[in-house]
């Protein structure tokens, strides 16, 4: 394992400290317990938005804190959800009296810790709503699994809910928007290599050099199939087909197309993926009216990518276009 770290124990605290220095205009960082919060929180008159989860997915979520998006992010240890204490502390820090929305990725640990935190916050008279994101079509949503995972689509939920909060929507309305984005977004990913969690020191799974894993989650958890490596276009087709069938997306739909890198794949390859994905959507008469390309929901240094398609309407488009200013996503301000 070669990593630019000092001590595996200090990875999260030192990374967060670095963010605090680099983005002092946008955020401040609390260290006991650890969470990242807008420099000007709580923002009067605004519903607060808190997300979080295991670290190792940067810039999600800490890099998405700022005007127009998250009010706070709670980073757990690498790939491990935070405990309820920092979630409660972050919730209190952003509550301006209009309530707080928790945006939670559907992983058992995240759901249980945010649920416990929401109970504790409610006991202190803070109104909390939770929206669980489950955009990953690789996993069957059935009684026999923990349900679909929350993956890169979470970034889109956070951006649009953040814009709704920014324009002054109340808690119910912000939660409804987040729920609507989740209902209209689908993702699927592929891993070319595994990643190594710092404290483990060995790759999180074994993937031979000539094989890829289709339908991974954001910790490299397996999805649909392990197959021999193929040309990029063929892989894109494998990812897009289940996405398009699932909603389903139809000819005439306006969509946001998001190609997300898993951390170890260069932009040159992400654009090859984007090119094919856009081509397939065009062939089906689906209009790509907004886009996002880059590393937003990563799995440490894993090579791979995910494709996310969000069905847009006028309101979602307007909220997507609304100004945002965070470390990783900024426009319009």
């Amino acid at each position, binding site marked *: 394992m070669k990593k630019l770290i000092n001590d595996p124990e200090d990875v999260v605290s030192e990374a967060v400290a670095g963010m605090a220095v680099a983005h002092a205009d946008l955020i401040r960082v609390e260290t006991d317990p650890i969470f990242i919060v807008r420099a000007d929180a709580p923002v009067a008159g605004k519903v607060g938005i808190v997300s979080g989860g295991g670290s190792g997915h940067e810039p999600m979520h800490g890099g998405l804190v700022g005007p127009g998006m998250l009010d706070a992010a709670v980073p757990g240890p690498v790939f491990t959800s935070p405990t*309820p204490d920092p979630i409660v502390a972050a919730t209190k820090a952003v509550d301006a009296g209009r309530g707080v929305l928790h945006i939670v990725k559907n992983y*058992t640990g995240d759901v249980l810790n945010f649920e*416990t935190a929401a109970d504790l916050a409610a006991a202190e008279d803070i109104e909390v709503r939770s929206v669980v994101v489950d955009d990953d079509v690789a996993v069957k949503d059935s009684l026999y*699994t*923990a349900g679909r995972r929350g993956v890169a689509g979470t970034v889109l939920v956070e951006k649009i809910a953040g814009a709704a909060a920014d324009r002054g929507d109340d808690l119910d309305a912000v939660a409804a928007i987040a729920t609507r984005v989740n209902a209209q977004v689908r993702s699927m990913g592929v891993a070319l290599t595994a990643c190594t969690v710092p404290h483990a020191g060995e790759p999180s799974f074994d993937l031979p050099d000539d094989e890829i894993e289709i339908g991974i989650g954001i910790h490299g958890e397996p999805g649909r199939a392990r197959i021999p490596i193929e040309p990029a276009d063929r892989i894109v087709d494998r990812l897009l087909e289940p996405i398009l069938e699932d909603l389903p997306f139809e000819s005439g739909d306006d969509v946001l197309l998001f190609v997300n890198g898993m951390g170890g794949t260069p932009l040159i390859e992400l654009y090859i993926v984007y090119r094919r994905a856009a081509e397939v959507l065009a062939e089906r008469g689906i209009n790509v009216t907004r886009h996002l390309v880059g590393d937003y929901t990563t799995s440490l240094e894993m090579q791979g990518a995910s494709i996310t398609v969000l069905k847009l309407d006028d309101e979602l488009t307007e909220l997507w276009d609304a100004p945002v200013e965070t470390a990783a996503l900024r426009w319009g301000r």
Partner: protein
Amino acid sequence: MALGTAWAVDWTRRAAALVEEHKQELTHLDRDIGDGDHGENLDRGFRAVVAKLDASAADATPGDVLKLVATTLISTVGGAAGPLYGTAFLKGSTAIKGLDELDGAAIVAFLTAARDGIVLRGKAEPGDKTMIDAWTPAVDAAAAAGDDPVAALRAAADAAAAGAVATEPLVARKGRASYLGERSAGHRDPGAQSTAYILEAAAAAAEANA
């Protein structure tokens, strides 16, 4: 024969020691079908609990000690295991609240409430390949063991160990292992195994403090 605060404290220390001893094993079990951090997370939690034990009140009841275990695990473990074990110890300690001495019935009440707490949080059923597959046989065995708390805990520990082994052929239906589907069969559930260790510590502490 009844068990008091000394038992609860000794249980906690023994559980911490057993978790530390088997940290790598639990993490490897988790790596096979989950995300490979179960041993690390549980060890972090129990080390924090042990650090707090010395500072606990001199007049603490067994329930007070086990409540301290609950709140500390919730605050330090994270993942799914933190809320699940935390809820187990919290509900269990509530069931024996105020008692200075625990007889067999109190032990069964503790174990039952702990198990019900896990079911409430995790919504898993027996057969889902989770820690419930160790807890449920443990509760049943303790209830069948009569009114001796030491015998009840020994029966519970042995049943939990057998329950953990019995998770191996199961296909996971809850937690991260459920994403593996059929591929989860052939692996022991890490949560069921850690449950077996924690209940083994409870039984060993009972035998040492009887």
